[in-house]
């Protein structure tokens, strides 16, 4: 007779996208892993547990990738939850379209790497 497969693993595992209600895409497609976000200067109420943790992290500008890493949540989940918070005006994203980068900005980057 074969043994019953172990069940323990299933009990402490929450599928990541449960937090996002099953969504795998952010409402705002311009959000990227490196997009910096920052919380707005007003008290926020009625936030979900995950959203509140994210807003707490965003007092200073921080990238979505760092939020995911800090909270130990998958990147895709972080993008969706941050997208919701941006939509609700709880977080403000910075523009980071590489097309907009000016030559002087590239020069600054080159000088910075050289000085490392």
């Amino acid at each position: 007779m074969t043994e019953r497969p172990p069940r323990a693993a299933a009990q402490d595992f929450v599928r990541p996208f449960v937090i996002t209600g099953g969504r795998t895409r952010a409402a705002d497609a311009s959000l990227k892993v490196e997009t910096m976000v920052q919380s707005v200067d007003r008290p926020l109420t009625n936030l979900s547990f995950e959203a509140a943790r994210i807003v707490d992290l965003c007092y200073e500008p921080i990238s979505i990738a760092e939020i995911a890493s800090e909270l130990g949540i998958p990147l895709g989940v972080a993008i969706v939850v941050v997208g919701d918070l941006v939509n609700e005006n709880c977080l403000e994203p910075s523009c980071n379209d590489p097309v907009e980068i000016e030559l002087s900005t590239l020069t600054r980057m080159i000088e910075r790497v050289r000085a490392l």
Partner: protein
Amino acid sequence: MSAPFDSSVGATQATQSGAAPSAPSRARRVTSVKLVVAGGFGVGKTTFVNSVSEIPPLKTEAAMTSESKSVDDTTLIDQKVTTTVAMDFGRITVDDQLVMYLFGTPGQERFAFMWDDLCDGALGAVVLADTRRLADCFIALDYFEARKTPFVVGVNHFGDAYHYPIPEVREALGIPDHVPVVDCDARDREMVKNALITLLQHVYEIRRAAMTR
């Protein structure tokens, strides 16, 4: 994206004075730039990031769920695959307005479908090549060529491997002359810096050429 965030990097300062109504009063506009490091599995991407990042490379998981057409069909539950893949990234702060992020792409070919999310919006890429397994980086070369993402090739030399001259590697990989190819031992900070500078200068030249055209 909605209007208040359409300001370019150069217009950032202007945004602070003529601020959008929702702008936070402590507004410290910080923009970010992403560079990606690609190449075959085990070629040294994580080491590369580690060599220049001001923070220990951070790991993040990308959860992947297979998007089944019939998600609610319980007979398919056994086939539904959830798996995660770790990605490394590092950071270089340029100044108080600009941060550079370096992302290593997942090396295994089976994760190539994730590259679109990761590489979307990248300023440029470093493709690391291992002379013992050159073919491993073909997929990355093809990918950035097809996307027209500026890239440079870093030839990572591993201990006992024969040291092929750059022109030979260039020929073996079929790299056109305008794409820089540099020696790059991922453990050597100076060589990694050189690879990044070469990439940024390459991007600079492409931008400048486009402007004067």
